[in-house]
């Protein structure tokens, strides 16, 4: 079997990349592990998707439906229920499904779009026995919204990431009682919109600087011990512990890019993103291998996923047709108060502007964002506020990008909040 472009993952990233590549007249094959296309969107039934691209708030399933309809109209080979197990440097893909068993396919280009998975209890070293009733937030979302299974009646949520906040509201509307959300950091992990519409709307308490120190229960969770955190040492403060009875603990402590496959071909990984290092075409360190969506870094908005995945799809098709332009590699580094920046490289001669996506380390007001090479300012802009949970963007004009000699740094200065 042979194809031009293999897309691994049929979430919003894979769908957008596949559609654009196919529109450039190359042969595209999507492999999706799940039964259906759409990635995590079919379970994200709330609205809040597509404000940027469609100019209206859609639900996750509606957003997915748009791109599913699009790929189905194009001549794209779609293999659902099919897991990719291995990729090789000479671009062989080994995949498996119940119908074809284990099979191999040769391709000219690969687009990695595997999304991310949730951090689990063991990754945050949460002590206690292993009773039933402990779930990650995304699992509760799938069980309730797709499978129609109600999980408990007294809920405690650990972590204030968006998935946890959205599930807090969902549990309440399904008739459960949410005892509280506990966040170890002094600021919430999710978007303000979700704090307001998921917690404040339903009077669910958000406890910052708190964590769970013990899980109680033998067969099923019976409660948790919560304690306040010392802001400097991050250790629980003695004497602040209290017990909360509950039958369900939801862990919403964030997502990590799913990169087992990327590592098989020794792709360079970004230090703070957890995903492959990419250039402005979303090409990884391995020629012809592209990456997009949550596999590159965790996005808060699906619109950004779609936009950068379209770049990957277009570039993959150009690679297949030997049309990709590769100028000198210039690097982009995170500077003051910046946690990471994507893409990490640009290859000039650019014809159009490049958007850089970055995350800040602290909340800052009246922030001045600068992109500099030594003393030369390549781009700058002001934001009234920047926050770690919300991606910040800055554009580089092509004429400025082409002036970069070696490397530029993104830095943010402002008033700490």
């Amino acid at each position: 079997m042979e194809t031009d472009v293999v897309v691994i993952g049929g979430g919003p990233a894979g769908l957008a990349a596949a559609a654009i590549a196919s529109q450039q007249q190359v042969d595209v094959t999507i492999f999706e592990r799940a039964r259906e296309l759409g990635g995590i969107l079919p379970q994200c039934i709330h609205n809040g998707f597509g404000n940027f691209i469609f100019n209206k708030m859609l639900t996750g399933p509606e957003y997915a439906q748009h791109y599913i309809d699009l790929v189905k109209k194009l001549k794209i080979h779609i293999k659902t229920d099919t897991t990719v197990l291995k990729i090789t440097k000479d671009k062989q893909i080994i995949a498996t499904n119940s119908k074809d068993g284990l099979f191999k396919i040769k391709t000219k280009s690969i687009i990695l779009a595997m999304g991310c998975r949730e951090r689990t209890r063991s990754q945050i070293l949460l002590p206690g026995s292993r009773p039933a009733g402990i779930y990650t937030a995304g699992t509760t979302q799938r069980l309730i919204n797709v499978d129609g299974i109600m999980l408990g009646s007294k809920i405690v949520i650990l972590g204030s990431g968006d998935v946890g906040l959205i599930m807090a509201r969902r549990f309440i509307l399904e008739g459960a009682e949410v005892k509280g959300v506990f966040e170890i950091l002094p600021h919430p992990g999710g978007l303000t919109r979700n704090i307001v519409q998921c917690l404040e709307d339903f009077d669910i308490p958000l406890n910052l600087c708190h964590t769970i120190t013990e899980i109680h229960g033998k067969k099923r969770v019976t409660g948790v011990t919560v304690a306040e955190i010392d802001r400097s040492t991050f250790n629980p403060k003695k004497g602040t512990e209290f017990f909360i009875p509950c039958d369900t603990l939801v862990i919403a402590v964030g997502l990590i890019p799913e990169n087992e496959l990327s590592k098989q071909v020794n792709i360079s990984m970004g230090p703070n993103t957890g995903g492959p290092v990419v250039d402005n075409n979303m090409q990884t360190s391995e020629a012809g291998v592209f990456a997009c969506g949550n596999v590159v870094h965790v996005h808060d908005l699906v619109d950004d996923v779609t936009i950068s995945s379209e770049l990957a799809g277009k570039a993959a098709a150009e690679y297949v047709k030997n049309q990709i332009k590769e100028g000198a590699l210039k690097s982009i580094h995170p500077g003051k108060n910046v946690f990471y920046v994507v893409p990490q490289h640009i290859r000039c001669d650019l014809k159009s502007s490049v958007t850089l996506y970055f995350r800040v380390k602290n909340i800052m007001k009246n922030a001045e964002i600068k992109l500099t090479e030594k003393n030369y300012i390549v781009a700058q802009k002001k934001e009234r506020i920047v926050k770690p949970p919300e991606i910040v963007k800055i554009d580089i004009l092509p004429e400025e990008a082409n002036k970069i000699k070696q490397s530029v740094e993104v830095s943010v200065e402002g008033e700490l909040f």
Partner: protein
Amino acid sequence: MITKKITCICCPLGCSVNVIINGDNYQVIGEQCKRGKDYAIQEVKDPRRVLTTTVKINFGIQKMLPVKSKNEVPKNLLNECVKILSKVVVEAPIRCGDVVYKNIHDTRIDIIATRDMERV
């Protein structure tokens, strides 16, 4: 006279806004722009949200069908509307946008499917 505290969600700044209600008179304090003022008054007068939930579906490739209210419903009716919809059962196939429940809770707002669901 009562004061209500609202967090404005119209932009990432997330201003804390107080609305002082004096009969028909609304005074807004703490907002940083007109959008925030309008939002805060709307939030105090008649807060509304798009309702999203699921209904049971028979013969579909999944057991639950995601749905939403075509327009925003009053916030205080969200719970009641979800209760009504928890008793609704539809049958596949369904197209994204199909009405699954008309005029929920006498709001004249319809509930529509938010995805296609093929029949198995």
